[in-house]
C-alpha cells in the first residue's frame, strides 16, 4: 500500500535527517514508528502524507510513484490518508463539528449530506455533547479526539498519527489507542509515531524503529 525504498531526506541543504529508509505498510496493518526525539519520525510521516518530497529514493503509494505525480494529482492522494497531527492543527475559528467536517466540506459536499456522519463520529469519540464548542474551550484530550475524528471522517484507507498520546494522561492515551485499534479492525491501515513504550508493548504490533535517521524493524507479531 505504501512502500519506501532507500529514501533520504534533508531540508534545504541541511544534514540528512533520513537515510536509506526502506519499509512497506501492508493493507490493513497496524504499525508503530518509534525512536527518540529528533530521530526523524515527524519527517518520515511528512513524506507519508505528501507534505514533503524525498531528496533520494522512491516512495510508492497505492501503486503510484510519488515522484512522477503531477501537483494536481496530490489532493486526490491526500484524501486517501487521514492525518492526526502532533499539535492537532484544528482551525480555532471553526466549531468542533466544522473541524471534523472539513475533509467532507472540501470535497464539495453540502452540510445536510454529511451532518449525520459527522455527528455519529463525534459521538463515537465521546464528544457528541461538545460538537458546537470551539477548540479554545476544549481540553488537550478533547482536541486530540477531534483531530482523530477529522482524520477518519472521510473513511480514508490509511490513518497516520504523530504522537497521538503525547499531550494527554495515560488513561486517555489508552482510550485513544482503543479507537485506533478499532479503526484498524475495520480495515484501516494505521501508522502511529510514538515514543510511548507502554503503548507499543500493549498493542503487540509491528514496530519500525528509527534511530539517527535509519530504520530497523522489530516487534514481529503483527497485530491481529
Amino acid at each position, binding site marked *: 500500500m505504501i512502500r519506501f525504498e532507500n529514501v533520504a531526506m534533508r531540508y534545504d541543504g541541511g544534514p540528512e535527517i533520513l537515510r536509506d529508509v526502506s519499509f512497506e505498510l501492508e493493507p490493513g496493518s497496524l504499525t508503530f514508528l518509534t525512536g527518540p526525539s529528533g530521530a526523524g519520525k515527524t519527517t518520515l510521516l511528512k513524506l507519508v*502524507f505528501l*507534505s514533503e518530497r524525498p531528496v533520494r529514493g522512491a516512495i510508492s503509494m497505492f501503486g503510484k510513484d510519488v515522484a512522477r505525480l503531477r*501537483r*494536481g494529482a*496530490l*489532493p*486526490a*492522494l*491526500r*484524501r486517501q490518508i487521514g*492525518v492526526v*497531527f502532533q499539535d492537532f*492543527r484544528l*482551525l*480555532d*475559528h*471553526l*466549531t468542533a*463539528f*466544522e473541524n471534523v467536517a*472539513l*475533509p467532507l*466540506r*472540501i*470535497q*464539495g459536499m453540502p*452540510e445536510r449530506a454529511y451532518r449525520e456522519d459527522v455527528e455519529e463520529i463525534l459521538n463515537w469519540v465521546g464528544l457528541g*455533547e*461538545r*460538537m*458546537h*464548542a*470551539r477548540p479554545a*474551550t476544549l481540553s488537550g484530550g478533547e482536541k486530540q479526539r477531534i483531530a482523530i475524528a*477529522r482524520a477518519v471522517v472521510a473513511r480514508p484507507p490509511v490513518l497516520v498519527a504523530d504522537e497521538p498520546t503525547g499531550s494527554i494522561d495515560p488513561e486517555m492515551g489508552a482510550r485513544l489507542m482503543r479507537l485506533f485499534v478499532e479503526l484498524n479492525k475495520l480495515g484501516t491501515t494505521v501508522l502511529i509515531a510514538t515514543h510511548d513504550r507502554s503503548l507499543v508493548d500493549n498493542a503487540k504490533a509491528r514496530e519500525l524503529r528509527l534511530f539517527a535517521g535509519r530504520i530497523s524493524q522489530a516487534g514481529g507479531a503483527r497485530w491481529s
Partner: protein
Amino acid sequence: MELNEAARPARPTPLFPRRGGGEGALFGVMAIMSFLACLTLALALGAARLAETWERGLTGQATVQILETPGIALEVQVTAALEVLNATPGIASARVMSAAESAELLKPWLGDADLSAVPVPALIAVTLDPARPLDADALRARLSAAAPGASFDDHSRWNAGLTAASSAIGWGAYAILALIALAASASVVFAARAALQAHRDVVDVLHMTGARAAFIAREVQWRFFMLGGWAGLAGLAGAAALAGAALLAADGPEAAFLPMLAPPWRDLVWLAAVPAAAAAIAMTTARLAVSGFLARTA
C-alpha cells in the same frame, strides 16, 4: 458547561477567519478608488452630455450676415438673400433680425454705445431642417451671387472645437478609470497574498486534508467579491453625497456645470456599475493571486 451548549452556527463558518488578514485596510483603499472612479466616470459622461447639448443647439442654427456693399442697398441684398434661403432645401425658416435684436447681440462687446453712426450688418437667423441635410457650399455660392455682401455661418468651426475638447476630456477620463482599476487590482493582489500568508496555518490544514487549489481560491475569491462590492457601494455613496452637497451649494455661474454633477437616470446606470466592477475586479484578481500563491507553495 455553558460552553458545551454553544449553538450551531446558522451558516457554515468561512474557512478563513475574518480578522487578521488586513482586509479593513483593503476595504478603505477600494472604497476610495471607487469614489474616485465614480467622480471620473461622472466627469466623462457629463462632458459627453454637455458637448452633445451644445452641439445640438449649434447645429440647429445658422446665421447669414450681410455687410453694406457699395452700389447695392442693404435692404435689396437682404430681400435677395431671403429669397435664396427660402428656396434652399434643408432650411426650415429664415428670419431677419431687427436692429434692436442686432444691437442686443453686440451689447456684451460694445456696451450701450450709440450704434446709429456705425454700419451694423444685417443678420438673418436661419433654422435648419434636421431631417434634410444642407449643402452649405452650394448655398454660399448662390448667396454671394444674389447678395455680394452676404456670408453664411453654420457654426461648424465652433462645433469642431467643442467636439475635440469633449472627446479629449472623455478619453482622459477613461484613461484615469483604467489607472484606477489597475491600482485597485494591485492592492487586491497584495491583500490576497497577505491574507494567505496571515492564514498560512489554515492553508496548510486545507492542503493536508486534500483541498484542491481551486477550492481554496474559491473560498478566498468570494470574500474579496463581497469586500469589493461593499467598498464600491461605500465609494458610490460618498460620490453621491458630494454631488448632492455641490448641487445644494451651487447658485452662481458655476451652475452651468451642474449637468456634470446631476447625471440623468441613464448615466446613473453606469455609475451603479462601479460597485459591480469593484466586486468583479476584487474577485478575479484575488483568484489569480491565490492560484499563483498556491502554485508556488502547495
